[in-house]
């Protein structure tokens, strides 16, 4: 008969050796081999079980219990070690994969819209939201649309103030000289004529952005710049509406409640005419270098459309009235963004463009 005590002792030896072996296993493969060695079909425990048959019937269940207990202990120890090894492997992987996260990210070089474009977009959007329709017109104009139809006859002193670029060897069919438009106001004439020709009847509200040209080139003048012409014709349009639209636009554009001041002025195509000032956006009206201490900054010219202008396109000036104004885009962008020099816009230094343009 086999000695049950010897078998029990053998089991204890196996358990102890296995636990030590598990602890010594450096990776999952080694551990897997140990599992086979101790718990496999031909493993150490199985070997012990082969001797059970030689035990007395009453000893058998005892040794059975011991074997099961040892088996469970082995399995638990193995599992424990597996977890340990998995954690160790993970830690090693994390360490190996550690990155210097202070290195710069891969650049997606962003493009940018020109600040004048952004200004045009913002300005146009405010009016588009108010129901103004966007219109454009030619930059090469004739004297009729640029001057005569706008109530500026040839002998008019205001015509001289426009510093017009004329074009060589270019004439209209009726032999008028052609020129580069000096303002976006001719779009008033063209838009109204087109609208009426298509059978429209006021109300008509238009916003017309575009490039304009003046023969004037120094620190504060560029021979090419951008304007936006805005006008509305309807029954009972009043100067109060002009002020309301200006106030809404300027406050929206400057993203704050700006004070506006209208001063009587003179433009041939409006009557009454007004220069429009805003409360200085730099000093909140207290007076600074930019506003020359006045607290006001001139931003645009405006007025009620002159009846002669309405008549020139065939609108009854008794029944309808309208307001119009034209604003200089560069000037508004300079004021909003604090850009000190007009020339920066046309120099197109990419450092300026990246800084001032909205990245895409």
């Amino acid at each position, binding site marked *: 008969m086999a000695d049950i005590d010897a078998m029990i002792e053998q089991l204890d030896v196996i358990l102890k050796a296995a636990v030590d072996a598990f602890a010594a296993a450096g990776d999952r493969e080694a551990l897997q081999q140990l599992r086979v060695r101790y718990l496999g079909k031909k493993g150490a425990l199985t070997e012990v079980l082969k001797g059970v048959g030689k035990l007395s019937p009453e000893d058998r269940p005892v040794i059975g219990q011991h074997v099961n207990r040892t088996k469970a202990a082995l399995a638990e120890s193995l599992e424990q070690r597996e977890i340990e090894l998995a954690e160790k492997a993970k830690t090693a992987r994390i360490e190996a994969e550690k990155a210097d996260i202070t290195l*710069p990210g*891969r*650049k*997606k*070089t962003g*493009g*940018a*819209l020109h600040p*004048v474009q952004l200004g045009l977009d913002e300005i146009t959007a405010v009016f*588009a939201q108010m*129901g*103004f329709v*966007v219109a454009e017109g*030619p*930059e*090469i104009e004739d004297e009729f649309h640029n001057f005569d139809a706008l109530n500026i006859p040839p*002998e*008019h*002193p205001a015509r001289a*103030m426009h510093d017009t*670029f*004329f*074009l*060589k060897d*270019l004439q*209209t069919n009726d032999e008028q000289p*052609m020129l*580069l438009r000096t303002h976006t106001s001719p779009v008033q004439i063209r838009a109204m004529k087109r609208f009426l020709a298509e059978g429209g009847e006021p109300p008509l509200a238009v916003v017309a952005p575009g*490039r304009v040209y003046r023969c004037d080139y120094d620190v504060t003048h560029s*021979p*090419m710049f951008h304007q936006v012409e805005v006008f509305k014709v*309807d029954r009972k*349009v*009043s*100067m*109060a*509406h002009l*002020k*309301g639209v*200006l*106030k809404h636009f300027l406050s929206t554009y400057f993203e704050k409640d700006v004070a506006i*001041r*209208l*001063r*009587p*002025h*003179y433009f041939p195509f409006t*009557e*009454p*005419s007004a220069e429009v000032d805003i409360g200085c956006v730099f000093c909140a009206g207290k007076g600074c270098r930019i506003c020359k201490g006045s607290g006001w900054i001139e931003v645009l010219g405006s007025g*009620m459309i002159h009846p002669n202008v309405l008549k020139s396109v065939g609108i009854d000036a008794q029944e309808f*009235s309208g307001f119009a104004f034209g604003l200089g885009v560069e000037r508004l962008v300079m004021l909003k963004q604090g850009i000190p020099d007009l020339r920066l*816009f*046309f120099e*197109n*230094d*990419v450092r300026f*463009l990246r800084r001032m*343009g909205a990245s*895409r």
Partner: protein
Amino acid sequence: MKIPFSCLKKHVALAETPTEIANHLVRLGHEVEAVELPRAAVKGVRVGLIESKIPHPDADKLSLLTVNIGENEPLAIVCGAMNMGEGDKVPVATIGTSLPNGMKIKKGKIRGEVSCGMCCSEAELGLAEDAAGLLILPADAPVGAEVGEFLELEEAVFDLSITPNRGDCMNVRGLARDLAADAGLALADIDLAEVTVDATLAAPKVTVSAEQDCPLYMARSIAGVTVSDSPAWMQAGLIMAGMRPVNGIVDVLNFIMLDLGQPMHAFDADKLSGDISIRSALGGENFAALDGRELTLNAGDLLVFDDSSVIALAGIMGSQPSGVSDGTINIILESAFFRQARVSETRRIYAMVSEASMRFERGVDPLMVEIAMQRATAMITNLFGGSAGAITVCGEPGNINSGRQVRCSVSHLESRLGIDIPEAMDDVLARMGFGISRKGDDLQIDVPSFRHDVSIPEDISEEYARVIGFDAIPELLPPLATTAPVQKDTAIHDAVTGGFLQVVSYAFISTSEQRLFVAGDGADIELANPISDAMRVMRRSVWPGLLNTAKHNLNRQQAGVALVEQGRVYQKTEAGHEENNVIAWLMTGEAQTDEWFAAVRQADFFDLKGAVEAWLALRGLTGRFIADDAIQGLQAGQSAKILIGRVEAGRIGRVDGDIAAALDMDAPVFVAEIDLDALPEGKKAKFAPLPEFPGVERDLVFLFDKDTSSDAILNAVKSAAGKLLTDARVFDLYAGKGVPEGKISLGIRFTLQDAKRTLTQEDSDTASNAIIGAMEKRFAAGLRG
């Protein structure tokens, strides 16, 4: 225009400060550029009494003065002037004073004698252009007083920008009228001294044959004047108003013009021959203008003649020989009303602007013509002696610009302004010279002769708005129209998504820049009056502007640039001219900078082609790039035209090496341009079900002849592979070791897919074989072993 405050106060008793007056002027529509204190610098100049005068021991032309300036001890002053004597009172600039000419007074020795100050002339005080000696002050000047205060030198000058419609305000009285009406003050009468007419003096004979352009002409003789400088106060006034003193007679006329707005002219009667006539030029007459120019006149110019020559371009400038000089004894004074349009046209033709022409052009007051002449006569005879004859008058002042009436309703004006017009405002307009009668809603308004700018109800509405104040008009939003949303042009917005910076360059370039990319100057549109040669012609391509911008930036340490511009190009056509919208790109230098994750890479053709393709894709368009070696300014072998459908819509390529070299641009430069007006409508995205069955991807690598177009290869692949093909592209391109000379190894990856089933090996073999066959047949290309 500059107006001294004291001059305004002579017409209306203004009690407010210059700043307050400036605010009123602005509110009334007269822009105040600045309120200047031009003579604030004369502080420290005091009235001195010369107590003794002895010659300088070491200098013949210097005197030693002791001057009492009201201190305990008189000052010792060395003086170089000759015109003073003991007992005279003179201005003394004390130690530490800064004079208007910039001189600072210090204690010093002149030829060994101590000098503790300086006696001043009118010029040194900024009161006159030049002066022969010291300014001798009146005997009643209090010794020790500030000369500036005594002479009332320190005053504000308003620098105004008068709008061209307000000719009536190009003078002190017109502005005073507006201010007085606004403040409810009385406008003073014009100071008119009696003129005693010398009946023995013949009135000038004047014939006006151009009555349309010259409806009123007055002339009078003044005989026996002694022309000298005008008095210091007048010179000072003229200088403050920004005009140069000339001689006594001219200064008086200028002074009255500034004050009352009527330009006048004086002829030297002894330089004229025969009678005066005012008529239109026949053309070809010669005219020697006062400013030194010699003109040949055009038919229609309004001229003043004597029997032998043109003595004035009416309302603009007199002739050189007939002008008044220091030696003039007898003069003929002219005061007239010349029609605005005539003066304006002539002034424009000869680019000859004068103070007179500016006023005639904007319209003067016909009723002021005689008043101004009377005032001038009185001043001239008082200051320079002589006697005045009777006035010759051609024309009737009361017939000019008179009897004009505007009728309208108060409610009409109110609806245009958006405010009520209280009846009290009628008084303000009445004080401005309007005759107003209001009956219920009806207004009847008589317009004064000096208001050339008022003729319609809207003009009246502006007058009311001015006097009520634009600030009183409320801010109301009009009813907003609801309109269909407008399709926004996003061309430039789409173009900057790929790392491009939008630039804005001038639409005019130099002729030589134009020739870089566009042959033949026949279609160039040239400016008649360019600012410079660099801005002479309207661009026909955006590329020159982009090249300049790129160069500007490369010169500023930029390693590479990617630029895009949207704008117009302009050219003559058979029908006239056209302006087209284009978008243009430029890339040069580093497309990829040296980074920790990537090596530096120079931009090449395919960077730009990719950008253009991506931009087209955003618009639902696909471009075909057709090699074109004949595009001006681009390098053969790296240039193509871009076709959208059948439309040639653009060009792309590498800028010719010589052009780049001329601009010192070392790296290759790539440009593209697309005509936005030529682009068709793009495809709109359409829904298609996602594939349910997996596709099969296969690679085939062939050896092709070197110049084979990949476009042609892929087209051949697509037509050979059969209906299951969903994609075919080049995934590898190699030439060099292992590839025979003259050949390229090109890898093609194609994808097959069927919506109804999973594909089999057989499917992909069929397609592969078809492709291999096609490559063999079409390009004699075999699989790379």
